[in-house]
């Protein structure tokens, strides 16, 4: 009876796995994992440092503009004369808001968030490196 190619391929030399290939594959993946974590640690660390430097600079600028804007004067007036505040609260609130350096405040907040986020990411990455090593 004629046989089929399936029978023919059954006699094809079986391919045996080299010793320790499974461990080698997992070790290679682990190596790749460490490399990836190191890269992200570097990236997030760099973002963290840059955002911190920018945050310091923007905070100085914020304080300077806050002093120049007269915000502190309005604020001390509100605190010292509550009667005036109650009578003219709408005007006072508007003056207080107008004198606030909004742009530098928003920038400072964004940078603070970026700093916190990148630092958290960098810590997680550093932890995973320490766990593997």
């Amino acid at each position, binding site marked *: 009876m*004629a046989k089929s*190619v*399936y029978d*023919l391929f059954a006699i094809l*030399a079986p*391919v045996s*796995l080299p010793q320790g290939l499974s461990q080698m*594959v997992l070790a290679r993946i682990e190596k790749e*994992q460490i490399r990836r974590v190191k890269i992200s640690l570097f990236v997030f660390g760099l973002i963290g440092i840059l955002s911190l430097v920018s945050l310091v600079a923007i905070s100085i600028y914020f304080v300077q503009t806050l002093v120049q804007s007269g915000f502190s004067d309005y604020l001390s007036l509100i605190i010292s004369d509550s009667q005036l505040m109650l009578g003219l609260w709408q005007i006072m609130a508007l003056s207080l808001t107008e004198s606030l350096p909004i742009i530098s405040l928003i920038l400072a907040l964004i940078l603070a968030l970026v700093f916190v986020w990148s630092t958290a990411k960098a810590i997680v990455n550093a932890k995973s490196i320490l766990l593997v090593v």
Partner: protein
Amino acid sequence: MAEESKIEEIVTEYLKPVYRLVFRLTGGAPETEDITQEVFVKVWKNLAKYDPKQSLKTWIFTIARNTTIDWFRKKKSIPFSDLKQNWGEEEERDFADNIADLESLPDELFAQAELKEKLDQAVITLSLDQRSVVTLHLEDNLTFEVIAKIMGQPINTVKSHYRRALLKLKEILHQKPY
């Protein structure tokens, strides 16, 4: 942690079939181990992109085949025509017909002492596409539909690769007297 245990499961389950596929495609080249490692690194890297609707085996075999093709390309040891053949649709359909006729082999062929060695050599002479189809169909028992997905080619093209491969194998196996 879940990702780690998942990749360990995948390596345990698919290492042997992937290694065998790469071994057959490269003709048992010494780089088979490296390519296999590369395949699993790619699987790990792209695990997040894997669509669970798709068969995991098909997805892994696709990566394995593509990684082997990349290796051939880097080695520049494979002509472009071997990677992509431009046959007409009609020719492909004609070629795909009557595969069953080709699958039967005479008993005398199996009586050859040197058959295993001869078959190993015959498989190496096949093109990469033909080798892929033959290995995936005859060794891994995959259907032509699944193989078509792995190779990213129409099913009729896959069938014609298979038919051509069988013709070539028969021709080689019958060449010398036994």
